[in-house]
């Protein structure tokens, strides 16, 4: 195993992660719910076709707009948007988006809901989900980059 020391940014990662944890903690304390990105977006979209998802759709929209405002706040503070180099385009990107959406809907959560919140709650379902998506993520990357 070789570590890419040049691109290693533990300070930014810890600070950013700490803020994500703070957001999730506040969300929980103020609103009593799990701050999961896939769940909040999924329920927001479901308001279009499911009656019971209509309750609270406006709050979900406000939350989503806040998330989009995040990188803009970063731009205001540092003068530029954070680096974002895409690794895939067109067909692969389409497939990736579809699979991420389907997977997190079926699996009831993603890196925020199962990862940050579920692990903090010591939920056995979330611990299993995180281990599962990390392993398939590592294996898929190995297949993509080294086979």
């Amino acid at each position, binding site marked *: 195993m*070789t570590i890419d020391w040049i691109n290693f940014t533990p300070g930014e990662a810890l600070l950013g992660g*700490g803020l994500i944890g703070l957001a999730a903690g506040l969300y929980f304390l103020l609103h009593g719910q799990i701050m999961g990105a896939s769940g909040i977006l999924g329920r927001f979209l479901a308001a279009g076709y499911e009656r019971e998802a209509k309750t609270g759709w406006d709050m979900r929209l406000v939350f989503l707009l806040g998330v989009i405002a*995040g990188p803009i706040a970063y731009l205001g503070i540092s003068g530029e948007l954070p680096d974002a180099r895409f690794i895939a385009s067109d067909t692969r990107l389409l497939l990736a988006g579809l*699979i991420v959406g389907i997977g997190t809907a*079926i699996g009831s959560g993603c890196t925020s809901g199962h990862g940050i919140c579920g692990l903090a709650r010591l939920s056995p379902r979330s611990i299993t989900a995180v281990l*599962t998506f990390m392993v398939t993520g590592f294996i898929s990357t*190995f297949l993509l980059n080294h086979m």
Partner: protein
Amino acid sequence: MRILSIFICGLIFGLGLAISGMLNPSKVSAFLDLAGAWDPSLAFVMGGGLMVNLVFFHFLKRPSPYFAESFALPSLTRLDKPLLIGAALFGIGWALGGLCPGPAIASLAYGTFDALFFFIAMAAGLIIGSKAKGWL
């Protein structure tokens, strides 16, 4: 107050994602590439988030939340097929595209075609997945 507080939660989340490097698909890919030039940074995102969140969930918890009548936590504790299949699929998609749902939402701020394209595909996936969940 309630609306403002929920916006601020979203804002802190989005800002944290921006600072952490999670919005950069090539950094996510380097984190998942154990056999290549491995960039372990994103493990620190999970570590930092978990430490802060543990404090909230275990030490700052109150009898009820400020803006709701009660805490609404997932009640399921059993491991089931949808959880495992869904999480396995999510890992594959994350590796293919380099974005998970939170960053996919925050990336709309860039206004680029790739970000919008991924977001729309993911939104379609969420709708398909929520329908498909019933069949599993």
